[in-house]
């Protein structure tokens, strides 16, 4: 027989002292509060990684505490400057949060006060039979209080512990609960962010309505990233913002004929205007995030030039961030994006195209099938000698095919779409890397050509390092290109072909 283990039980409500000490005879129960209440915050990433992992993460003062699955608590100290999981010192909280995306910062999603009480269950001799430490979280706002009980059994007094557990549960407002819904109980009005919202699509809906709904949904996604970009919480806000706008743009170009030419042109113009000011900052983010990789690509003798380059990137990034933030906070921007939102949210407006009233089921299958055949036609012509431009072309086609399949996915059984998406994704990964390497070479060349002079010696160091980087990237691009043909032949296999046919083509005939 072992020493009894402490255990955690999470209860709803604040378990008032008066309730705790009622109906306990013949036992005695002492409640002692250590008096102080302190502030606490609940932390999570913008995408809710902690909540989705069935956890609750709290910060109170220097102390970071994670509750996992409703029955496990771990704590460690953290500094305010520790914003990412990677920043934390090694410890139990850091280990418990390893699942969180590395690029996402931990943000406050709500606040309140935290207080602690200790309770003792005693017998007629005043011998302690069981103990517990209660930590009550009282949220600001309309949420519900939560009490985390740390049950500390004493060896040989199992019955008393059972009694205490039942007593606490009876005093609580609800049965014991897990960690995943705690954040919602504490802060019920907390909006949830979903970078890929489910847009309800039914086969008999029209192309017009569907396009409107998808665009509206992604404009909302974009807007939910604005404050995060301005606050510069992490680079993923801008990334998500751009992905959302790209989806908007792709609906405009993919849903051919849903909107009139004029309407399409006007919306495309608006989307481009939103996108344009974000490019430079995103590029710099990408390079700065890859800093370690770049250093690893070159021998140490060439690191001086890289230091110079990244120093310049950082400086430029500050400027780029300031200017984008100013733009996002401006009335001009606000008016424009609101107008865009209002337009797509008004179904009775003008601007319907010739296909506006086509049922979306047929419309989607037709578009996917056409796009699929286009991808295959082009891909089959690609050999080791075809110019890079054609590979880029293929990448863009694949991307459009992927967007189409994602937009219309709700119309098809998920189990049928998944096996065709998988090889497509793999092909896209190759194409994406191929493209990244080529974009990076161009970016670095351009930077080298246009950077402000630093003086002869430093210019030389910079040029040497960048030259070497370009050479490495060029080599990688070649290797990636060699993989593309293999990936495509997997995508172009008879099985995938027949699946595409039966999913998106046979339906029509």
């Amino acid at each position, binding site marked *: *027989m*072992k*020493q*009894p283990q402490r255990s955690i039980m999470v209860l709803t409500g604040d378990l008032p002292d008066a309730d705790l000490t009622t109906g306990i005879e013949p036992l005695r129960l002492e409640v002692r509060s250590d008096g102080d209440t302190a502030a606490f915050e609940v932390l999570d990433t913008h995408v809710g990684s902690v909540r989705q992992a069935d956890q609750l993460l709290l910060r109170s003062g220097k102390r970071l505490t994670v509750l996992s699955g409703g029955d496990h608590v771990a704590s460690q100290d953290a500094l305010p400057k520790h914003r990412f999981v990677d920043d934390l010192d090694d410890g139990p909280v850091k280990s418990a949060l390893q699942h969180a995306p590395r690029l996402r910062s931990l943000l406050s999603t709500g606040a309140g006060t935290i207080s602690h009480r200790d309770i003792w269950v005693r*017998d007629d*001799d*005043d*011998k*302690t039979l069981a103990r517990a430490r209660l930590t009550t979280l009282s949220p600001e706002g309309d949420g519900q209080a939560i009490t985390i009980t740390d049950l500390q*059994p*004493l*060896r*040989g*007094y199992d019955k008393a512990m059972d009694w205490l557990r039942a007593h606490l549960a009876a005093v609580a407002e609800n049965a014991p609960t897990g960690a995943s819904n705690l954040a919602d109980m504490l802060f019920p009005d907390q909006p949830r962010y979903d970078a890929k919202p489910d847009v309800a699509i039914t086969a008999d809906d029209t192309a017009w309505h569907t396009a409107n709904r998808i665009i509206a949904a992604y404009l909302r996604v974009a807007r939910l990233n604005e404050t995060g970009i301005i606050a510069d919480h992490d680079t993923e806000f801008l990334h998500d913002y751009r992905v959302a706008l790209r989806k908007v743009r792709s609906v405009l170009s993919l849903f051919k004929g849903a909107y009139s030419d004029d309407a399409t042109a006007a919306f495309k113009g608006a989307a481009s205007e939103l996108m344009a000011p974000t490019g430079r900052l995103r590029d710099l983010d990408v390079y700065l995030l890859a800093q370690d990789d770049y250093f690893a690509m070159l021998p140490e003798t060439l690191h001086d030039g890289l230091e110079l380059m990244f120093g310049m990137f950082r400086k430029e990034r500050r400027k780029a961030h300031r200017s984008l933030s100013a733009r996002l906070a401006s009335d001009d921007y606000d008016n424009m994006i609101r107008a865009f939102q209002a337009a797509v949210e008004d179904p009775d407006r003008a601007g319907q195209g010739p296909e506006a009233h086509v049922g979306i089921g047929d419309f989607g299958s037709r578009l996917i099938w056409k796009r699929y055949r286009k991808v295959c036609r082009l891909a089959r012509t690609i050999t080791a000698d075809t110019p890079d431009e054609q590979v880029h072309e293929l990448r863009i086609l694949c991307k459009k095919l992927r967007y189409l399949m994602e937009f219309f996915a709700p119309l098809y059984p998920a189990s049928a779409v998944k096996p065709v998406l998988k090889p497509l994704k793999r092909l896209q990964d190759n194409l994406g890397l191929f493209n990244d390497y080529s974009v990076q070479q161009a970016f670095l060349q351009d930077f080298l050509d246009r950077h402000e002079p630093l003086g002869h010696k430093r210019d030389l160091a910079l040029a040497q390092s960048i030259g070497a980087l370009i050479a490495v990237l060029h080599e990688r691009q070649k290797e990636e290109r060699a993989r593309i043909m293999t990936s495509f032949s997997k995508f172009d296999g008879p099985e995938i072909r027949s699946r595409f046919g039966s999913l998106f083509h046979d339906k029509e005939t």
Partner: protein
Amino acid sequence: MKIVACYSNKGGVGKTAASVNLAYAFAEAGNRVLLCDLDPQGAASFYFRVKPSQKLQNEAFFEESKQVAKAIRGSDYENLDILPANMTFRDFDIFLSRMKNSRSRLKKAMKAVGADYDIIVLDCPPNISTLSESVLQAADLIVVPVIPTTLSERTFEQLLEFVEGQDALKVSKKQIAAFFSMVQRQKALHGETMTRMREAYPKRMLDAVLPFATDVERMGVNRAPLLAFAPDRPSAKAYRDVFRELQQRLNKD
């Protein structure tokens, strides 16, 4: 795991008071401690407000280590558990003498429970008997409170004779650590006896001296170790000094 037995061949010398406070001191220092109340009077259990165990039978104690483990109760203090007195311990000696190889049985029973603990403190009843042999056999350290009177001096000699007579027990002299208990400085007799005994047994007598103090008697009213309710009193400090010397001796081997 180390076994520390508070033992004497004389009654009322302060064994239980020492057991309770030494167990507390060991626990306070971060050791996981089990205090075994081997005295049917149950004084040690009383001090910790633990009710005597009804279930535990002699048979169980030696045959079924699981039964021992079940009888253990957590005290109100961190790291400190109690094996409460059992009323049937009254028949301990008879029981033990009937058993073959009885001397090693206690050790076996303790070992089985020992995985959970760093230190086991035994509070022994005050008579030399088969149980005593078992205790002497099992213990890594035998702590003997000695009231510095002429009579106690004699009893201590008897104790040593007894121990040395138990060749088979392989109790080395080092294992015995005696300390002066209930010392009254104003009594010339106490001072003289202490000087004499320190000369006679330089290695066995601890430096720490436990004064006669009403604080110790207050344990009966407070039902808690002195170190818990009056940690800064001189007698509490004296128990801590004893503890430190014992710890040193335990660390040596």
